[in-house]
């Protein structure tokens, strides 16, 4: 097994509904979807964010899109114009989740490492 950051396995999009941020996580390679579903439990995601998410974390599965959708309640400092956060609408909240470190089989790590980053020669 090897360690890899989620950013190399998935891309993401986030948005807001009031004080709740949504984070959609999409596997680059559909073959990695089961692994992501296994690793990214609501408990694990809640623990990753720690004090950044005050409320509960809900998870929804979209195997058809090899994607997971998380609702992070109480994540936006009150939301909308109440919030004092730079990211008051949770636009980049998804990238904070992509920092998470996962244990994956060596061949997955070998295949995926660097996938989420712009190549130096690009």
């Amino acid at each position, binding site marked *: 097994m090897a360690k890899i950051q989620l950013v190399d396995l998935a891309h993401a999009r986030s948005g807001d509904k009031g004080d709740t941020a949504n984070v959609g996580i999409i596997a680059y390679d559909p073959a990695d979807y089961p692994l992501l579903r296994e690793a990214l439990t609501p408990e694990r995601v809640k623990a990753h964010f720690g004090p950044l998410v005050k409320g509960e974390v809900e998870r929804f599965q979209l195997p058809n899109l090899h994607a997971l*959708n998380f609702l992070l309640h109480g994540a936006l400092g009150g939301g909308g*114009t109440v919030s004092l956060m730079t990211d008051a609408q949770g636009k980049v909240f998804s990238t904070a989740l992509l920092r998470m470190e996962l244990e994956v089989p060596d061949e997955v790590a070998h295949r995926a490492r660097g996938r989420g980053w712009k190549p130096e020669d690009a």
Partner: protein
Amino acid sequence: MTSDNRTLRIGSGQGFWGDDLDAPVRQMEGGPLDYLMMDYLAEVTMSIMQKQRSRDPSTGYARDFIPLMERLFPAVASKGVRIVTNAGGVNPEGCGEALLEAGRKAGVAGKVKVGVVTGDDLLDRLPQLVEEGHELTNMETGRPITDILEDVQSANAYIGADPIVEALRKGADVIVTGRSTDTALTYGPMMHAFGWSPDDHDRIAQGVVAGHINECGAQASGGNAMADWWTIPSMETVGFPIIEASPDGSLVVTKHPGTGGRVNRAVVTEQLLYEMGDPSEYITPDVVADFTSLQLEEVGEDRVRVTGVTGRPRTDFLKVSIAWADGWKAVGSLVYSWPDAPAKAREAARILRARFDRLGLEFDEVRTELVGWDATHGHLAGEPPSDIPEVQLRIAVRARDRAPVERFSREIAPLVLTGPPSVTGFAGGRPRVQQVMAYWPALLRREAVEPHLKVRILEV
């Protein structure tokens, strides 16, 4: 005037109030189109428009929509492209009147009809609705509406496709609504053109997905797309998304040839997940759509086919968006440079907070961020190294009363000469004191709204 017998081409022209004003023109000129939808409204937008209208009763809609329409009217008249938009904000009537004048200026008098949809605005009716027993409890917090009734700035019901379909049936070429849902601006034309009945749940649900893809403009055609972003070409001339819809509800997402951006599976998937809640229960005024059975397939360059969405009957309620005045806030910032930039910024923040205490300023919240280090990822960013070249201290406050926030706005500049060294970046002047508009989502029975919806057809 459909592009062929079987498909309808519905383009997206604006993803929010303030979007690229050349995009709708590119959509009109870049190839065949049957409809152009433009979404202007977000949760806070209605309260901004309401504030403008309270100062000048002729305003309260997206004003830049009028000069834009001056540019689009000739194509509306000559090509038969019909426009559906919620640019009317809290004053669709005023927007409609301004449109007539713009149409005459554009030389389309006698050739174009404008449809105006009203009845979503609940501000004046709110006390009566509460008296009649409508609870309008905050869906997020459970608070009763009576707590804030006096502070309400705007209140609108999210309305569906019915009035849009009616306006199209009556021959309107340009339809202006208030708080129509973003998605209805796209599936309304589909329901009209294909003659779907209200219980065609699966097909309308396909239309909802089409609307969800169109409602954020270029976000569905390569803008703000994370997957391989560095390979997405020519965003300076990005083509906004176009939905090619078929009578059976199946659809293809695409864009005009020769435009920048990209429409592929990854880009469309990202947009599908934007502001997503429970994907099996995407609630709209016309249908409850289930995204979990949806299938995407790349069927050509910049072409993604969407099938398999299912729908269930609509609920008895409409969502209501209420904005209320909830205090004051201000944001100030200063830039500290190497060496020890983070330590300098943190000491400045400590001094400020200590001065607030000495002045007896009471805030509901004081937030400090080091922009360039922890503003978006918080503690997950770890401790900043002492040798980063620079950091921006951003400090924000919020209070019930205006006075402490006003005082805060005068406390930032003095730090330049009374705090840690190597500080700059105060050229912007004092922080602006802003009123906080809080969002209050609630549900209301449809029969309290629907009899009030009206469609008026005006001749340019």
